[in-house]
């Protein structure tokens, strides 16, 4: 059995790659992809500890997290669509106010 530390390291790396994307990118689509990476890093942890402790709660909960990620993407894509219609761009730094 692979030591759980390696799964945690992988999850930390994936999470930090997502965080790096959020901190350095301005494209809304890349933002969305970065958030997905961070969510999936949490999923890796849930599944790793589920297998480690021999309990299916973590794996079941990771399924719900995936569903939540799908919902988030649906709304996120809608928001990006509106952003593009108003600014002809998906640069998140263009929208500086709550209304335009």
């Amino acid at each position, binding site marked *: 059995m692979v030591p759980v530390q390696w799964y945690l390291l992988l999850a930390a790396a994936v999470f930090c790659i997502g965080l790096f994307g959020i901190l350095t990118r301005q494209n809304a689509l890349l933002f969305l992809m970065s958030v997905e990476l961070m969510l999936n890093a949490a999923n890796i942890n849930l599944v790793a500890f589920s297998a480690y402790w021999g309990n299916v709660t973590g794996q079941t909960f990771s399924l719900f997290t995936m569903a939540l990620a799908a919902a988030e993407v649906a709304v996120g894509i*809608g928001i990006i669509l509106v952003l593009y219609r108003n600014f002809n761009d998906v640069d998140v730094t263009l929208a500086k106010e709550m209304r335009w």
Partner: protein
Amino acid sequence: MTTKPELRTGSHLLPGLAAVVLFVVMAVAILRASFGDPQGFGPDAPITASIGYAMFNLDMGTIPGEGMLVAFEIIDAVLVAALVAAVLLARREQDGSVVALLADGGREVRDHLTDGERPETDAVDEGGDR
């Protein structure tokens, strides 16, 4: 001629250092932590079936797990809400225009009502505090 994406380097990458530092801190914490003895599922454990049982609060699985029926229903509602929200955000009117009330804060409706004449002072547009 085909092009390929290129990584744009520059000072905008500096905030990303925070992510690198966070990874180093997490890596040190993870490698120094100790987690008891692993339990594991066993070679012939019905994992998939147990997940299904746990999802619907059925006490039929052989692997321990909490019931998740309430979470299942909440996620169900969230998914429906997200679907409706996505459709509301993305839909167009019958004449092909975008749904202005959602997209521009009602500006198109205002222009329609005032025949395109903008009031002389619009505190919000000018960054006011109305």
